[in-house]
Structures are given as C-alpha cells and as structure tokens.
C-alpha cells in the first residue's frame, strides 16, 4: 500500500476503533446501588457466579479470569482455574489473595459488602430476565473494554430468539410445566426460565399471579394437565417413572404421550444461567416443545 494512504487509513481505524473502546476511568453503578470505578480494563477478574463466568468468556475476556466459584464449569477452560467457594460460602481470603481488579458477584449473600470493605473492586448483580441479561452483557462489555464484542453477542442472541419465533409463527403453544424440584417448585412467567419457556413457544401453566418461584399444589398440575413436562431436577434423581408414579399424575397428557423430559446436568445448567447461552436454552426448549419444527 502506498505510504500516502497509510496514515489516513490508520487514522480511520483508530477513529472507528475509538467508538468501540471504553474510556477509563469509568464509573458504573451496580444492582445494589454501589458505585464502582475502574481505572483501566481489568486484567485480573474473579467471577463468583457461573453465568458471569460464561459471560466474561463469551466476551472474549476468558484469559483475564484468575478465579471462579465452585459451580462454574463452562467453558471447559475455566476448570483449571482456582475455585473460590460460592456466593453463600465464599473463600474470602483466597479471593483477596488473587489481587483481582474486578470481582463479579450476585446481589445476595453479603459478598459485596465484605469485598468493598477490603477495598476490592466488586460489581454486584445478576440478571433475572432476558432483557436484564442483555443489559448486563453490555455493562460487562463496557467494564472489560469489550463493548464491540458485547454488542455483537447481544445481537446474536436476539437474532437466535427471533429466529425461533419466526419458525413458530402461527404455531400453537403447548401447555408446559417446568419442575425445579419435586416438592414441587416451579417457575413463573416473570422469571428467567419462564421467559425462555414463552420464547420457545410454550405456555407455562404457572400464571404471573403465582409468583416467580412458587411451591405449587400438585393438584393444580393435575387439573391443568400440561402437554409437556420438563424435569430440571432430573440431575437430582427425579425420573419420568417417579413422576408417573405420583398420585393422579399417571394420567397426565405429558406422561401418556411420553413428553416428560429429563434434563441432564449440562442442559439444566444452560436453562438456569442467565448468560450467553440463553439462545441455546431457547433452542433446547423449542426442540422439546415442537419436535416437529426443530
């Protein structure tokens, strides 16, 4: 390339790049209302929530992770990282010893307070809905100087969901019961999993009025007679046979039609983490709800 073009082209790149580069120092406010100021792009990140771990890696900042919580298992690379307990029983000393310049925690459990008091930069928050997931990914992108990647990721996820919606246009949504736990506990439409259910073309038998994580009367499930049952508690030993053996449940449509699905550990993880795999989650559910379309 002739040297006369070199400078303008470089200048152009720099300018375009500048639009997508975070400017430090930057201040963000986390979900607990605390302000966090970052002086530079964090190079030593600790994540105390599996969805945060996945988000960080999805934004291309996996190398910056120096420690993760006990439950983080995706992507495979993080298994080599030091384990730091979890949100309710964190290994505070180990976290501090790693000298992180950003710790990502959820807003429960008091970890934010402990770390802030020790002067460790901490962001407390966890997305509870799809919209919040997108917003969090953007915020995370800003914090990690990965704004461009965040925008791309969010766009991709939105596209995946839109794609599923397009295939399901005009298709009737089967009634679905998602079981979190054999008590039984389920999810309401306002929860993250509940939103995934409707995005995947399913109608949750649990209504908004019942709350986000209600303990349901088993009678209610029998009366609603869902067409599909998703067992997210299968990794804890709940099987299709167990469900069929429950009084009154043997006659449910989902049982007689063989549409009670046991999720494996990985699938259960995907569904429960409000992070970059939500597109996969919606796809997974859509496959269960509409096997003819996917």
């Amino acid at each position, binding site marked *: 390339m002739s040297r006369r073009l070199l400078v303008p082209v470089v200048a152009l790149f720099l300018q375009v790049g500048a639009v997508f580069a975070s400017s430090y120092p930057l201040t963000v406010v986390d979900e607990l209302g605390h302000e966090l100021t970052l002086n530079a792009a964090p190079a030593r990140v600790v994540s105390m929530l599996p969805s945060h771990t996945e988000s960080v890696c999805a934004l291309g900042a996996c190398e910056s992770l120096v420690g993760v919580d006990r439950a983080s298992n995706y992507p495979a690379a993080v298994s080599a990282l030091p384990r730091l307990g*979890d949100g*309710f*029983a964190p290994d505070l000393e180990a976290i501090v010893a790693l000298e992180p310049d950003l710790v990502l925690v959820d807003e429960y459990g008091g970890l934010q307070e402990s770390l802030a008091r020790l002067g460790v930069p901490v962001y407390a928050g966890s997305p509870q809905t799809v919209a919040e997931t997108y917003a969090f990914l953007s915020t995370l992108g800003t914090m990690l100087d990965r704004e461009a990647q965040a925008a791309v990721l969010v766009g991709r996820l939105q596209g995946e969901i839109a794609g599923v919606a397009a295939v399901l246009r005009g298709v009737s949504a089967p009634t679905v019961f998602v079981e*979190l*736990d*054999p*008590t*039984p*506990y389920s999810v309401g439409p306002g929860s993250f999993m509940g939103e995934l259910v409707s995005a995947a073309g399913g109608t949750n038998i649990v209504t908004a009025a*019942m*709350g986000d*994580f*209600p*303990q*349901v*009367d*088993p*009678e*209610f499930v*029998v*009366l609603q*007679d869902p067409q599909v049952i998703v067992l997210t508690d299968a*990794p*804890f*030993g709940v099987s299709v046979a167990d469900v069929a053996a*429950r*009084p*009154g449940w043997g*006659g449910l449509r989902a049982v007689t039609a063989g549409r009670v699905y046991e999720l494996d550990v990985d699938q259960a993880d995907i569904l429960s983490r409000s992070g970059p795999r939500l597109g996969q989650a919606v796809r997974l559910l859509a496959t269960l709800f509409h096997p003819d379309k996917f």
Partner: protein
Amino acid sequence: MTVAAEPRRRHVRPRLAWVLSASVVALLAVMIVAVGLGSVSVGPAEVARAALKGLRGDSLQALDRVVWQLRFPRVVLAAVVGAALALAGTVFQGVFRNPLAEPYLIGTASGAGFGAVLVMSLGASVPLLARLGAPLVAFAFALVTVSLVLFLARQGGAVPTVRLILAGVVVGSLFTAGTSFLLVAAREQAAGILSWLLGGFGFSSWHRVGMMALFALPAMLLVGAFARALDLLQLGEEGAALLGLNVERMKLLLLGVATLVTAAAVSVAGVIGFVGLIVPHAARLALGRPHARLLPVAALWGAAFMVLADLLARMVIAPVEVPVGVVTSLVGGPFFLWLLRRRGGPA
C-alpha cells in the same frame, strides 16, 4: 358443710356421648368440605360420585381423578396423621405428667427429619437412598434416635423421666445439627428440603394412607386399652406402683407406641408442630383428664384440626401451597397463649 378457701367450681361435665358424636360428625363434615375445596371446588354430590367410582375401580377422568386420587387420600391422610399426633401428644403429656410435653420431646422428629433430608440431599449420588425413599429412611432414623435416647437414659433397670427428656434434647440437637448441615450443603435442594421439614400433605396417596393406618390404628387400640394405666400414672410413679402398676414397663410400652406412631407421621408428612401439644390441652379443658374419655376425643379433634390446617394451607394462596407446619404454628401459637392466660397456667 365444708369451709373451702378456694373458689368452688361446680363442674357440669358434658356428657361423653354427646361430645363424641358431635366430634365424629364435625370431623366427617370437615373432611367432606375439605375434599370438595381446592383449586377447583366440587360439591358434595360430586364428591360422593367420585368416591363410588373410585371404590368400584372405574377409570376416572379429570375432575373425578383429582378428587379420588389426590384430594381423598390427602384429606384422609391428614386426618389419620392429625389423630396420631394428638394421641401421641396425649400419651406423652400423661406419661411425663407435664402439659408442655409433646410427641417430639425425645428426638423422634429430629431423627426422622435427618433421615428424610439425607435422602433428599444425597439421593442423586447414592441410588440406594433414592430407592429406599424418604419415608422409609426417615422412619428408620426415628427408631435409631429413640433407641439411642432410651439407651442413654437408662439407669439401673429404669428409665427416669428426667433423664429421658435430657437425653432427648441431646440426641435431638445432634440430629438437628446434622440436618442443618445437610440443608446448607445441598444448596439447590434447600427450598424443597425446607418445605418438607415444615410439613405437608402434597403427594399423599392411598398407599401412604394405608401405611399410616397400619401404625395408627393398632396404636390407638393399644393406647386406649391402657387408658386406665395412664390415669394411674397421674398419681406419680410411686403412687401408681403402690396400686400395683408396673411403672417402668408401662412407661416404655406407652412411649414406645406413641413414638412409633409419631415416627410414622413424621416420615409421611414432615414435622408438623403444635398438634401434639395443643389438641390434648383443648380436649382436657372440655373433658377433664380421665384418659378413657380423653384419648378418643383428642384423636378426633386432632384429625379435624389437621384436615382444616391442610385445607388452609392449600387455599390461602391457592394454587400456591403454604407448608402445613406454618399454618399449625400460626393457629397453635395464639391458641396456646390464650390457654395460658385463661387457666393462669397450663392445665
């Protein structure tokens, strides 16, 4: 004729027959109402129809299925468990001669709770536990607990009541600690475990009703047969021995039966508090202490109370369920307070 310093209360005691028949009628009425109510209400005629179909073995559709396979067993199980706990409570209060005694005094609930939580938290990694199931393991642990307590409390050939209570507290705390630990360790199942611990009749089945009745009916007959012995124990252990009662053997027998039936109740329905404490009190207020009268009435009232509590637990924020133990505590607590204030001391 007599110069009495204390106020003389002329007690006109209600006729036993009247109270008994009224209690039976009330229980049946409550049960019919409870079967009819739920996330969908069903009239008594439909209830009867569903029952007939179910008993004949016809295949059932939708609402009939809900009524016969879910509501009926649930209500009947609640009644049997309530009766069992009230009976056990009456026995415990009689043997310990203490109005604050209740069926969980010697650690039964702590042991059973630990067993059930063990299955719920480790069931996935230990298939044997999952196969045995929570109720069976809970029952086994309840028996282990009580055996441990008896062993610790033994002194010479006897089991002094004070040592029994102390041993119960010690062993109970041990198992409660174990349960708490499991609760914290099994984070994902915590909500489910907590719900179970607080008590509920969610997955009652005719099978469970049968199992519970297997324990409860013989227990009621046995305890009823020894009602007179329970009366004699009120004279103090020495007083009873002087009247020819083999006090140690009777204590062990009565407590043993009461504990078995309590263990069964906890295994099937979780730890439901207050029933074993409050119902015997209320029955005593109405009828006095003679156990031949007290035991059947306490059982009937316990059954009705539990059915009502379960109904409330289902209906209050239907179709979301509140654990039954929460309802019994909310009702039982204030009632107990009222009892204390009224009598100036527990009866």
